[in-house]
């Protein structure tokens, strides 16, 4: 099944100075997430991770002044060290907004990693289901569509 590429979608990429196994761990081990997710205006006092498809995660974010809030969601795909996908929902911000989805691809580049992150709006439950089952093919289409940066 091929999922529709659904705008709006945001795509970013970064060359990271570590193997993709190492980068994958930075996203999926609580102590690692807490170490890097924080810096820049807030800290990350807690990170809960239930690393299985359908399992949930919850990352805390604590502004220097202000209440702690969370990013939470469900893992949609876990394929170490190549790909990680999860839903994305703010919690406790006062205006949590709609649920969205994040897909991260880890591409080996020698001893380094090219990380590609796609953050897209989930349009409906049907669209979300399509994504779950058509992630690979939709990713290629999305790459073609949005990789002009």
């Amino acid at each position: 099944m091929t999922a529709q590429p659904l705008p709006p979608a945001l795509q970013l990429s970064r060359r990271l100075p570590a193997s993709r196994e190492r980068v994958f761990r930075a996203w999926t081990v609580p102590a690692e997430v807490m170490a890097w997710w924080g810096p820049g205006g807030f800290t990350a006092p807690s990170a809960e991770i239930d690393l299985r498809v359908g399992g949930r995660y919850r990352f805390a974010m604590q502004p220097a002044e202000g209440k702690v809030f969370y990013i939470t969601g469900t893992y949609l795909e876990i394929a170490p060290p190549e790909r990680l996908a999860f839903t994305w929902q703010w919690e406790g911000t006062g205006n949590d907004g709609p649920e969205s989805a994040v897909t991260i691809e880890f591409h080996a580049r020698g001893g380094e990693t090219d990380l590609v992150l796609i953050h897209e709006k989930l349009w409906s439950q049907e669209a979300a289901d399509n994504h779950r089952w058509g992630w690979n093919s939709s990713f290629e289409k999305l790459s073609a569509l949005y990789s002009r940066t």
Partner: protein
Amino acid sequence: MVKHSLDTTFNALADPTRRAILARLALGETATSELAEPFDISLPAVLKHLAVLEDAGLVKRQKRGRTAWCALSPGPLKSASDWMAQYQPFWDERLDALAAYLSRNKN
């Protein structure tokens, strides 16, 4: 002025025919009958799509004389692109932090 939620906008945009209709209307106001032509579907089906787009505030319909006209109403599209704009600096900062962390903690 009706306030349209992001979800309504996104649901309206989820259909490829509706996106094609919007792309056509981006070129200028179009008669409804003319709008149906490039699509391999019936006029009633096009009207159904137009109703969804109108409900989402993306299209305005107006009858002048014997012709029904459709025009793009881009307000809600701006909210959709704002959604992307708010995440760009967020993720830039997060990925910079990740790169810095990995430089310091190779293993």
